[in-house]
């Protein structure tokens, strides 16, 4: 009898290896053959993928697992493909109730798609944060109407949740931790990032505009009601990447994006830079793109709560070291690089209309203007020029984003 058990066990084991390959093939076949309006159901269990799963030119599709941590696709032994899942040229695609793990490159890339929703999806690189992890967890790029809701992103060597070169975006009720960047909105327009938790990343939430891209400048980005806390993780991004510039201890960083409103956030225990606002020139990377606007304008930081337990900045960045030398244990909360566009400042050193950086009603938060254009030695806590308010932004048209499915 015992013999029969072992015999069956061996057969089943041999079969399960074979079955893994067949599950992958079955899922990939469904990704290809599913009819518009159809659903790809993923069973409960852990399934090993050896290559990228790809879907192209599909409409009104739901890809659905049995639940976060119940259906798990892992690319631990991935042999081919630059991402875990790649979806292109679709409309109204929803991915829900699934965990995706350990892809060699980006985890889920969605390109040129109008209507992409991620709901209750976890993307993670297991083990300790490592530069060997893939760059982006959630990676919609060149998309319209993007929703990321109730998702988790863990361990990305660039951004856990990244939305790039896209329009109409809502990221909400999600959690990003142990990534280099928790949530990043890049060269994107009309975005709302709200009610998320960004914790234990190098930087919590980034709003960036970069040069040399097809979609030149983002804007109309709102970051509100988020809990952005303890983002003091060592920057483990491979050097050379833009996020490698993010100093450990960053809560929110706005780089070159205009029309940004940051409000009602809890920004706590980010030891270097509660909130930073900088021009692309601050990166000191040569700039040749003439259509690109390197200066943040009309940025409004208001009604946030700033708090720090330990006041000594993280020292593993230039700015961290500089802040420690200047302020020891009493580092300011909100930093402006002080590199305004030529002609941005009017008489008596006030911003001209349309060029404002406004910082208001942030409790006890301390403001610092680095004055990097003139020289860091002219840094100043004088917030006079920044004591202004701007009209509330509208952010994403949620009806557009939510109305899709």
């Amino acid at each position, binding site marked *: 009898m015992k013999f029969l*058990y072992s015999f*069956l*066990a061996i057969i*089943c084991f041999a*079969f*399960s290896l*074979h*079955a893994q390959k*067949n*599950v992958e*093939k*079955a899922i*990939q*076949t469904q*990704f*290809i*053959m599913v009819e518009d309006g159809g659903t790809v159901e993923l069973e409960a269990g852990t399934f090993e993928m*050896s*290559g*990228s799963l*790809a*879907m*192209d*030119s599909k409409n009104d599709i739901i890809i659905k697992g049995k639940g976060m941590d119940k259906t798990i696709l892992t690319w631990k032994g*991935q*042999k*081919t*493909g*630059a991402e875990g899942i790649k979806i*292109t*040229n679709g409309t109204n695609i929803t991915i829900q109730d699934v965990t995706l793990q350990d892809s*060699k*490159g*980006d985890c889920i890339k969605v*390109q*040129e798609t109008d209507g992409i929703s991620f709901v209750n999806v976890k993307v993670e690189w297991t083990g300790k944060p490592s*530069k*060997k992890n*893939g*760059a*982006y967890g959630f*990676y919609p*790029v*060149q998309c319209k109407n993007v929703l990321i809701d109730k998702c988790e992103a863990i361990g990305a*060597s*660039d951004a856990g949740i990244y939305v*790039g*070169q896209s329009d109409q975006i809502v990221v909400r009720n999600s959690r990003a931790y142990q990534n280099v960047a928790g949530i990043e909105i890049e060269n994107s327009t009309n975005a709302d990032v709200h009610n998320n938790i960004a914790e234990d990343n190098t930087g919590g939430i980034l709003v960036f505009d*970069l040069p*040399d*891209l*097809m979609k030149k400048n983002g804007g109309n980005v709102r970051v509100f009601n988020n809990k952005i806390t303890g983002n003091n993780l060592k920057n483990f991004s*491979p*050097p*050379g*990447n*833009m996020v490698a510039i993010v100093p450990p201890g960053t809560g929110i960083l706005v780089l070159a994006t205009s029309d940004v409103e940051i409000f009602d956030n809890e920004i706590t225990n980010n030891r270097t830079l509660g909130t930073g606002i900088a021009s692309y020139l601050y990166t000191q*990377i*040569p700039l*040749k793109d003439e259509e690109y606007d390197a200066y943040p304008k009309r940025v409004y930081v208001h009604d946030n709560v700033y708090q720090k337990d330990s006041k000594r900045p993280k020292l593993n960045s230039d700015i961290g070291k500089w802040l420690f030398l200047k302020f020891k244990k009493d580092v300011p909360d909100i930093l402006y690089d002080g590199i305004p566009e030529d002609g941005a400042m009017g008489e008596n050193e006030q911003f001209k209309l349309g060029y404002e950086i406004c910082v208001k009603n942030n409790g006890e938060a301390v403001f610092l203007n680095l004055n990097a254009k003139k020289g860091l030695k002219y840094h100043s806590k004088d917030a006079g020029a920044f004591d202004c308010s701007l009209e509330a932004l509208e952010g994403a048209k949620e009806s557009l984003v939510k109305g899709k499915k």
Partner: protein
Amino acid sequence: MKNALLLLCVGGFLFFFSTAFSGEEENYKLNLSEYGFFEGELSELIPADGVFSYEINAPLFSDYAHKARFIYLPEGTAMSYQNERVFDFPVGAAILKTFYYHQDERKADSPKRLMETRVLLHKKEGWIALPYIWNEEQTDAVLEVAGGSEMIKWKNDKGKKQQLEYQVPNMVQCKGCHSYDKQLTPIGPSARQLNMGSQLTELAAKGLVVNLPDANEIPQLAQWEHRETGTVAERARAYLDGNCGHCHNPKGPASTSGMFLTTHFDDPTALGINKAPIAAGRGGGGRAYGIVPGKPDQSILVYRMESEDPGEMMPELGRQLIHDQGVALIREWIEEMR
């Protein structure tokens, strides 16, 4: 306990059978042989009526596989010349590419192992791409929409043993490269690729290509492995055009990167010269720019060509080995750049 195990096994087998792809699509055939593109022994790839073979100047590197290329045009139809894009094809046309290895690269008559034949069919609604995998007996190739993999061993031109789990892309991945303006498209048959010896004039003489301009107006790519066909820069740019340009152009899948590598671009930033990466991730290899003039070892382009890691390497698909000769050329080009 016993019952549970049995159930597991039976369930597993049922699952296995239910997932095997079956069923015929009206649009295309399940076996390559059914099209009648070739006559005689299928594996000999002897073109039937209406089918002709062609060559291109700057082929894509595919793990040292050889490629046999054919075009089928319905009787009385022709390709229409385009200066920059691939030629216009009539509805009903097909483009076929068969990947194969010689058992021993040093011997011209060494037996071949055919791996796959990719078929592009031009339907009324547009192009479709179909991967056919050759069977063990080499008698036919069978459609596999989800792609597949197969071990292959051969000896290279130095007699060194090579081994590879050859990967056949799935139907969607075909479009990962064969994409222009979100539409599936052929890549190879462009003027600059086909302008090789008398190939184009002969095709025109047979009426297979129309609207051919004067010879001096037709663009031409250098043949990267033949020094006499161009300068280092010309050959390097031809190599990048053939290996990267299908994605790296403003209407291709790599438009996200802002790096454009067809021969139509001369803007240094578009080529990656002193350009910071956008989403290279660890593919950047810790290097600052796509190309650092004079410094191949500081250029991301070279790093990604020299990587065998799926999360880092370029191209993203269709390559597992490093193309030593291609890398050497790109290194030489960057080395001499000022």
